[in-house]
């Protein structure tokens, strides 16, 4: 780990200002991802700005009838919130499918969105990785890539975004609220928040340097049966091979988003129109343009079958 300086910000605006003043500064929230990466010198911030004490840890109703989730709300608290469990079940389920109890107690809403990939070549500093060292090459493309992306991949990077929470937020049409050094606030639809790797896989979101996430907002509840099915190699403490977040209405219409298949939560609105025609039809549209490797081609079939599982479960729940 490289030596760094540390400060506690006094307000969100000051946190953003402090981050802009010091190039190479980073925010630290739960620290469950950032500190690991610092120990390996994959991240080498010169300065840490602790955003834990900024009062961003509340879940409040919005004027529109939705929920505003502070960026520092812990994953455990968010999953357990009565309103979330009642009206946004898919979010609660996705959170509970992630990491472990100890990690969820620390992990925050903002940090979870910004967690970095779990590509093993990204983690091994002896290996080439365009995301870690732009221009160094990609170890995974011709290497071990069973877990990697099949959609939206580039020649530079085939990593996935590992968050479960983000997949649920995508299907819920959440928006991300931020503040910048100059005090300017903006809201970013979750669909636009994460980027595809393209030629710059090291740039993962549309956030500007120093921009602080203050909250994630959920629109008013849409009802329906809300499910999250995460397929993995063991029953907990594992990242998704494929996950499906779904909201299915009683008339069979609904929304679906996929995790474990791309550099961001994957949702294709056109595919949702196929929901009444069953999983195969939806999968076909969702997976258009997929470019799997030999090792992860199984994800195509797995997406279809996991969708079928979720639709069957939704149907069962409606009976």
């Amino acid at each position, binding site marked *: 780990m*490289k030596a760094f300086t540390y400060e506690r910000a006094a307000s969100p605006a000051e946190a953003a200002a402090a981050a802009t003043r010091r190039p190479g500064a980073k925010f630290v929230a739960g620290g469950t991802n950032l500190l690991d990466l610092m120990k390996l*010198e994959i991240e080498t911030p010169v300065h840490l700005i602790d955003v834990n004490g900024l009062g961003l840890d509340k879940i409040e109703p919005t004027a529109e009838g939705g929920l505003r989730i502070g960026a520092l709300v812990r994953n455990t608290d968010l999953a357990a919130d009565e309103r979330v469990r009642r009206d946004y079940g898919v979010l609660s389920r996705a959170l509970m499918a992630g990491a472990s109890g100890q990690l969820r107690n620390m992990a925050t809403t903002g940090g979870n969105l910004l967690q970095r990939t*779990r590509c093993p*070549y990204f983690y091994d500093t002896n290996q080439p990785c365009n995301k870690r060292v732009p221009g160094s090459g990609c170890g995974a493309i011709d290497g071990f890539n069973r877990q990697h992306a099949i959609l939206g991949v580039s020649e530079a990077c085939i990593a996935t975004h590992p968050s479960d929470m983000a997949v649920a937020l995508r299907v819920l049409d959440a928006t991300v609220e931020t503040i910048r050094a100059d005090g300017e606030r903006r809201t970013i639809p979750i669909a636009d928040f994460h980027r595809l790797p393209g030629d710059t896989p090291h740039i993962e979101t549309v956030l500007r340097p120093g921009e602080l996430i203050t909250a994630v907002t959920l629109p008013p509840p849409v009802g329906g049966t809300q499910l999250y099915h995460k397929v993995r*190699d*063991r*029953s907990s403490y594992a990242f998704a*091979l494929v996950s499906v977040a779904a909201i299915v209405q009683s008339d069979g219409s609904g929304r679906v988003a996929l995790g474990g298949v791309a550099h961001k939560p994957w949702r294709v609105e056109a595919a949702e129109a196929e929901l009444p025609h069953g999983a195969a039809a939806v999968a076909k549209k969702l997976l258009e343009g997929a470019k799997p490797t030999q090792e992860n081609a199984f994800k195509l079939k797995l997406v279809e*079958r996991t969708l079928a*599982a979720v639709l069957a479960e939704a149907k069962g729940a409606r009976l």
Partner: protein
Amino acid sequence: MKFDTPATTNPIDQLKVVGQPVDRVDGPLKTTGTAPYAYEHPVPDAAYGHVIGAAIAKGRITSMDLAQARAAPGVLAIVTADNAGKLEKGEHNTATLLGGPEIQHYHQAIALVVAETFEQARAAAHLVHVEYERGRGAFDLAAEKGSSIKPKPGIGGEADTAVGDFASAFAEAPVQLDATYTTPDQTHVMMEPHASIAKWDGDRLTVWTSNQMVAWGTKDLAKTLGIPKENVHLMSPYIGGGFGGKLFLRADVLLAALGARAAKRPVKVALQRALMINNTTHRPATIQRIRLGAAKDGRLTAIGHESWSGDLPGGEPETAVSQTRLLYAGANRMTSMRLAVLDLPEGNALRAPGEAPGMMALEIAMDEMAEKLGMDPVEFRLLNDTQVDPEHPKRPFSQRHLVECLRKGADHFGWAKRTARPGRSRKGRWLTGLGVAAAFCNNLLMKSAARVRLDHRGILTVETDMTDIGTGSYTVIAQTAAETMGLPLDKVVVRLGDSRFPVSCGSGGQWGGNNSSSGVYAACIKLRQAIAKKAGIDEDDAVFSDGHVTAGSKRMTLAELAGESGLAAEDQIEYGDLAERYQQSTFGAHFVEVAVDAFTGETHVRRMLAVCAAGRILNPKTARSQVIGAMTMGVGAALMEGLHVDKRRGFFVNHDLASYEVPVHADIPHQEVIFLDETDPVSSPLKAKGVGELGICGAAAAVANAIYNASGVRVRDYPVTLDKFIDRLPEAA
């Protein structure tokens, strides 16, 4: 004590303490966090070492720039092959522990940075700049299979065995199976990493380490450093798991010693978790071809098992055919092992080496064959039982209750309710199925010594360099001594894991419990003789119980007989030729129920049962823990464990605990273990055998067979992950 005739009635048979499910005597230390593990031993003024692993798999270092690291805050010394002086290679090591300029495998240690604090050492390690010249290596077992050679006879015996005429018998058999199975490279991932503290006093070296075999470690450390063995004092009293990964001297000890010499300070080194997997040893992958031929009635007439594995030059094969030489009857048989050179990290023992991966393949093959014969897989195994070593029919098994294990297990598990036709049992989303496999693991005999001392308080202290790797050695040794001396358990103090103590068998190959306790028994018998003599009574009339020795009307306390100066005895158990005259093995049967998600292919184990026949169970509680732990590892092997080889760069890619998956609690809902009431007078005076490895042997195959029964999909490549069969899974909806 020479053990060369089967045991008769002896003090252990009283079973007042031995055979009782007593709690671990070291339990309170463990649960309160006060058992000092190697890295935690309080050594004043210790500095910290951080290991640098090679960034390439094969080739050489062309330059190493230490200037920046040397100048970094807190740095005391940097050890490299360049400045470490001449080093030998340990007898039990295949690759050298400090590499450079030649690199033999990925993450081979090439430097140790020593600093005042751990963080400073780690930060400075990142400042060491190394340039390499990559060499060409061989990393793909399947590709190298063709160039593999017949290895020299080793731990697993001859490379090839043959009885009768396998080729003709197989060709003529009306029912045949010819299938190839693969098992992946696996790693130990025990909780405690390899860790050591080293301290020099002049030319004398003291190390606190985590090593299963104290005598091997001491000897190889001295040999590597080129110093007399007597100058090394090695202690390994508590070990946070080993599974074979700590059988040998590893880089942590050597580098701590070299670092301490360079820094002129005691030095602590723990291998970083992400380094452990490629730096140390692993269970090598295998490719196994099994051919079975049977008559229509189900009797095996031909059994053939070939196995290929790889290792660094000078390494040994994974002996995956060893159980096939012994497990089932059949007049015509062949086994063979071939070894390829691979430039991956060093292959070596992991819990039940040979048998664990061998049974993974053989016991699927038996399931497949039973199906071809239209027989129940339990019945098929019962029919092909043998009471003699099938390669040497004059040699009986000392005890063999495989049939009883299978019968009892089938009955207890509700095997009769199994739907024989696969894929026919669906409940809602779940395809359910039952699987069975035999369990088999050899019982090995190793000589083992101990010293016992009785003091004036009537406290007996046992000393042996035996280790407790979480298995319960402290406890079964205390029980053995208490039983033999007629003392309550709380009057026995057991001290282990010190190179100044008599040399034991150490912990490995499921030989630890039986052999080390037998060594302690031998020493106690000698002490009983000394006590009887001092009491002036005939040893044969002496009765030791409740802290007293009694003969006729004479009754004295052991404490008073010990007197101020105490009484001591030292002895070892040595074995005659009983192991040649009798085949000694342990047996069992695994039963597993799984549920496979009809949509996604996710597999969940629902319940498991192991029935074991492994001689006298010295402590049913610690033995059960061993077996359920081994069954859990079997589930891991079946469903998720496997190192992924990057075949271009030559390393195991998933080298941390997040990516090398082992079962979590949620994967293991219900386990049951039944021990048959067995004593084996041929194995040792305790009539016990090993049990720590039996539980893993066959467990994975039982899971794989259950998956087949549930889904109708056969997977012959471990682990049975859903990507290997999702395209073959029947339509779910």
